[in-house]
């Protein structure tokens, strides 16, 4: 089945030739971005195709949803952004307009105010992320909703996104393998283990210092979370574990491109998307400790014209240890 793009209720296929479709998903993030090109000769201006118009991509059912970010009638270039990105810059306020670190309250306020087009059928968390939130309106500074959810999810060992039904959700990385990949050339892998044990220093909500140690292998890396604000033991543990997995040495740090023929069962390429775990069944792990390395996809770009999916593993851009630690809110000591 072909992918069809609907902008503001108008099917692109009803307007004229279009193509160069690329569908990008991210984890965390869910639906992230779409680019496509409408025949520039049309120089089409259409009352429904305006910025922020809802965008649907269907492959049978809905595959991707978002809003129109940019359409240039002269070049015909279309860029749509996923609903996930509406969380950027939206303030994290509760229904009374007070700052909050309760994920549910902040999301619900943003939905009811029309700041985001999300739906929240299930709870993410009704517990304040920050311990000093209990008094309400504790800080002068307003958090951004996206940043709050990033922080909260990191503390829970989860990631969050907005799916093709506009549903905001959070989940741990899957452990079950969705796709088995064959006939790949080995993607760039780190090979060296950058951290085998993480020793973290942090402060709780009353300001007391504490040490959390995760892992047991060498090398030992010390991380300073004391500037990350008051934390809980669970939040620190989740961050340390994320650092360990991203720097384990078995991690794949580079991307690779797949065709249908490289996926066992030759599925329709639209089913390959970020957030799924894949295994490279004919490769060895970079640290040579095992076969068939598996990892969760962090970015997938389905290039519909070429019939390929560019895959980048989750956390892959963080090539060096310092960057990995920083992404978790710490500082390498």
């Amino acid at each position: 089945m072909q992918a069809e793009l609907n902008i503001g209720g108008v099917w692109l296929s009803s307007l004229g030739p279009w193509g160069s479709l690329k569908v990008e998903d991210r984890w965390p993030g869910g639906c992230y971005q779409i680019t496509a090109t409408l025949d520039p000769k049309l120089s089409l201006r259409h009352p429904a195709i305006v910025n922020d118009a809802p965008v649907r991509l269907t492959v049978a059912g809905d595959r991707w949803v978002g809003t129109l970010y940019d359409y240039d009638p002269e070049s015909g270039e279309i860029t749509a952004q996923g609903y996930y990105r509406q969380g950027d810059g939206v303030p994290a306020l509760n229904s009374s307009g007070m700052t909050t670190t309760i994920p549910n309250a902040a999301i619900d306020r943003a939905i009811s105010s029309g700041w985001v087009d999300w739906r929240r059928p299930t709870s993410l968390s009704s517990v304040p992320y920050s311990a000093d939130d209990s008094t309400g309106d504790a800080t002068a500074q307003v958090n951004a909703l996206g940043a709050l959810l990033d922080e909260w999810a990191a503390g829970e060992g989860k990631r969050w996104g907005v799916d093709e039904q506009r549903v905001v959700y959070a989940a741990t990385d899957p452990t079950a393998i969705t796709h088995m990949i064959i006939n790949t050339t080995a993607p760039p892998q780190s090979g060296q283990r950058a951290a085998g044990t993480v020793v973290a220093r942090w402060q709780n909500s009353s300001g007391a210092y504490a040490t959390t140690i995760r892992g047991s292998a060498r090398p030992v890396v010390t991380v300073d979370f004391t500037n990350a604000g008051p934390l809980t033991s669970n939040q620190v543990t989740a961050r340390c574990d994320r650092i360990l997995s991203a720097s384990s040495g078995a991690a794949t740090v580079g991307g690779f491109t797949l065709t249908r023929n490289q996926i066992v069962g030759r599925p329709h390429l639209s089913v390959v998307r970020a957030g799924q775990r894949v295994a490279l069944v004919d490769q060895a792990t970079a640290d040579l400790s095992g076969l068939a390395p598996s990892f969760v996809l962090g970015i997938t770009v389905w290039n519909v014209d070429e019939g390929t999916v560019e895959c980048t593993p989750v956390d892959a851009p963080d090539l060096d240890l310092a960057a990995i630690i920083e992404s978790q809110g710490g500082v390498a000591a």
Partner: protein
Amino acid sequence: MSASFSCDELVFLTSDDGDRAADEAQGYHFELLGDDWEMTSAERAIEAIQSQLFDGEAISEGSYGNMPATIPVAVVGVDSAGLAQGSAALTRVLRRPGTRQFVYLAPDGASPATVFDALHVKPAMQFSDVRENQNRRHYLLTLACKPFPRSDTEVSTQGEPVAAPTFTLVDDVSSSSAWSAQDPLRTGVASRAWSPARYNIATNGLVSDTIRSQGWTRGSNTESIVWNTQTGTTGHITASRKTVFETASRLYVNSPKWTLRGAGAIRLRMRMASNYNASFGCLYRWFNSAGNQIGDDHTITETTVDGDVTALITPAAGAVKVSIHPYARFLDANGNARSWALRMVYLGPDGSSFWGNTTPGASTAYDWLGTPFNSESVELTPATLSAGSGQVSITGYVHAGVELPVARTASITPTTASPYIVLTGTLTSATSSPQLALRTSLSPNPVAPAALTYGASGNYKAYYRAAAGTATSICQSLVAAPSAASTVATMTVTQVDLATSLPPIGNGRQGKFTLDIQGTMPAEASLQVANTGGVGTNVLVYTGPENPNFVPALSPWMVAAGTTDGSSISNKKFTVPTSMAGTDTWQISHVGLESSTYALFAKVSGSSLSTGAAYTFSTRQQTYYASGTPYGETTTSTGKIIAAGTGHADIAQIGLLRLPTIDTNHRAGGLEGLRLWVSGGTWVLDEAWLFDMVSGQLSHIKPFSGGYANITIKAASPDFPQQRFYTDDGDGAIRSQDGRVQIWGNHRLDPATGCDVFAICDAATPDLSVSASYFPRWDMFAADLADDEDS
């Protein structure tokens, strides 16, 4: 005559052709030059991957590019004024917007016209001083055409409705002489029907698989017993002693105590083996209800070396249990370690002749009931066919590996026009989800019914697709459902027919229509779905490769119990359970199930919902191999519906499935079991569909009114290069707003694969039909079309 090209009013003829008189009047004419013609078939994109697993590259074929052509032409004027007029006429026509159609006629005119749809034409003038003096100008036309040229006539074809089969009676079973309870094509247990006769008198009577956990221990002189699954087909106990011992000593193993079913005599049988010159025997003891031994030990003396021990033993008065103690006695001492193996023990009723994994005789077989370690065996005797008025009937035992066959040894000749063998009859209520299979002398592999209508009171009509030819015998078997308990069923056959097609599915609101596609290349087609009284408010059109053994609708494969509903699409309603049921919702034959990615769509109606809540539909998939044996792992896919209110009715995608779970290569006994459940609320399923995402196309239209007589998906045409959706309100076609198109599919008909159209509507009074019109497309030049379908 020679070849000619024309484009609107421009006619390019080779120089020696044509009536020039008219040309003289207008002052110019065009010529087609013979040199430098270039026309190339559209090239297909291929993706080559250097395979790491094999030598060479793996090639996958992609889409086609445009067809390029260069055509040299000349403008010839009577004078320079005519030449200028001609040049201007050429440019005027070629600059017209949109697709320019170049019509090619072959030199002898026998083959039909071919139309090249040029998306771009570049007329490059090739100036020559000499030719200007001759009032001639040469142009090289460079064309970028649509990939496949087409016929100049549009073909209309009515979808061959898969509904309303015509039956040809083969056998009304007024005589039973051709019928039997044994398949002449097979041998052994599977060939015939069986009736249960007697059960074992001791539970766990056969020890072949279960010996280790049943409490067998080593006895006198034995140093160790080992459960060995490696050397026997079903495993055995090896008793051994490593040190030398006296010649006459016995090496014992002890059995647990077996519970007796009654006071009758028991046939005790064992098979024993030794690498040494040994003789065998068995000691046995009776126990009363208090667990105390009754009387002395009894012994069966050895019979044969390396062989079987058998005796009829009569329980002592008051005995409720028996234990047995097989032994070997070695006949000489040569200083080696000793061992022997107990291959099998059987305690059963007298008169049975079963020896475990040996082939049963023609008159008796055994089967297992229940679960391992807690099982009984049942002795089977041949079932006989009973003939009544206009029917044959057979009652027999159905279990994994034991089928209930009814065979007919007389010729039957399916043809390409009537390819379905249809058996009609009844099945007992014990088989709520009957698994039927047909073998014919033409095809020894069993075929699952392509359609099975299964009415109330056990009436069935099973449609089996068969190759054309004369079969000398057929045999229909009732096979045990996957994981089903054994049962005794009665199968009756009242009629055998040949049918032209499969029966309509459900209430006639959905149907599969096969289109006969002409041409050699994929063609854009206009598809029309019509329904006299109005198509309703939901119309789904799915096109895919021709596949006689598959329908996207799942209701024909439904095995879960539902209720009848004449207002629905499927004629069934099924309340989706809120947790995974222990049995399947659907079981889909692997015969027609292509390995692909499928979108699972369902028409569901929810009630008692909370507004805005997510309801997750889960689908567990499991492959069953032969005789309903679960095979491989299960996987579960999910999809969700967000409730719009406390009630929610929709046709929605509720999952993406990769099927089959395990590819059995279209094995006839292969089944795909799907179990559907939902996370909460009350959801009633009408119908579900599997749409192939790789090779199919789906459109979903919600007409503005349910009363429109048809929905037309107009193919892209030279006049309007985009596909459009129309509804017809009776006065003419009205283009549908985009908002009424829920899912947009671009439909093409490919003669290489054929085309099945599956149409679905929710019309109040269904009489669904499908037609298509299209210009057949060709690799390069058009061929004659079938006459009866020219419009």
